[in-house]
């Protein structure tokens, strides 16, 4: 009722509502985006550059894949390692457990890479 000549105002109540709701949507989208970027650590397993699996490191288990015979991955206390491999080289088994972003286990004979992803903080590169 007080806004009889609201048409002359630069911004009216409805505009404010639209702006506020748009900002809210942006904030929600941003928060969601940040949250997915910051989610718990994930180990990405690839063989010859094809992604075989992404595994969360919060559940302890042993994992085998039909496409990677002879290899056993072990998730334990937030770490992952290759505990068995018939590749003959065994550099991957000796690498031991990894748990931080950027760390990786590499099996050259089978071209398997296990790499930790998911945490936003971490070095740009890891020397190994």
């Amino acid at each position, binding site marked *: 009722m007080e806004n009889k000549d*609201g*048409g002359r*105002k*630069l*911004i*009216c109540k*409805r*505009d404010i509502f*639209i*702006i506020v709701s*748009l900002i809210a949507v942006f904030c929600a989208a941003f928060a969601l985006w940040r949250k997915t970027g910051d989610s718990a650590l994930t180990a990405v397993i690839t063989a*010859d*550059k094809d992604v075989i699996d992404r595994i969360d490191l919060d559940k302890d288990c042993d994992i085998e894949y039909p496409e990677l015979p002879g290899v056993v991955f072990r998730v334990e206390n937030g*770490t992952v390692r290759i505990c068995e491999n018939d590749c*003959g*080289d065994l*550099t991957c088994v*000796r*690498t*031991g*457990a*990894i*748990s*931080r972003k*950027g*760390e*990786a286990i*590499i099996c*050259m004979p089978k*071209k398997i*890479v296990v790499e930790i992803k998911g945490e936003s903080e*971490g*070095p*740009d*590169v*890891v*020397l*190994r």
Partner: protein
Amino acid sequence: MLKTVLTAAELLAVAAAAVSLCSCGSETASSRDFVFDTYSSVSVSGRDAEDVLQSVGNTLEELSRAFELCYGTEAAELPDNEAYRDCFDKTKALNEVYGDSVNVACGALTELWGISTPNPRVPTDGEIADAMGNITCKRYGDFSDGMKLDFGAVAKGYACDRAYELLESTETEYAVVSLSSTTLLYGEKPDGTDFKIGVTDPLSGDGYVGIISTEAAFASTSGGYERYFEAQGERYCHILDMNTGRPAETDLVSVTVVVPADTPNGGIMSDFLATLIYIGGSEELDKWLDRKDIEVVAVREDGAVYSSCKGFELDESGGYYYGE
């Protein structure tokens, strides 16, 4: 009323468009591959990032294939390749300053030990002496019968130098070329902060000894902790000391050398020196820590860490401590 609503919506639309334009101004591209008997990753940010990435990838792959061919082929029978001559000459120049414990004319010896092959073995003293006789080679092309080249100790550093040259001819803002044990950190990150390098914990293999913060640089790590073999109860690491013809006997477990990116041939230098300092052991460490043109982080087998690196932060949770 309708007009003002439109204006507000338009303003938001323009703002959104401006934001998306800003973030698209320079593209970023990255790729991963298996080259140099290891896992590599390259990421490039700047103009034509996809094309630049492609040419860096091609260069790495070509060099990797060329150097791989050296294993098992007599030097005299290698095809003509500018990279062999160039890398050979650059390593020889380093040999003249720093000595011969890292040498590229050592292929016969690498093959004899078979380290990094499925069937390594401990050769007899006679066999080692024979293979050692082949190592004296002053000039490229001056190859004796049976001489083989092995660029293993410098190939990745050399490849990073070539990648650097390539990037210099482009409008790349920043790039990270990682060949596992050697890396090139190029340009400047968009937020202006230093590059961060995680140095793998050599004793547990999990986590980092510490993090190095640095401006654009080449960096290499050498260590015998990942590749080795055991025979008669003894552990032999994959790094051979060319002065003795045997696997390095050193009390160091990991040596990292950081060389500023604008150092000519800084890549091959960082790779070469990391191995040389590793072989030399903690006894010879002081002279390297005193140098102003390179930065060194060395880890001894008892967990003592020695660093001349201004931007190094030790991770004490791994049980490491500063030596002396």
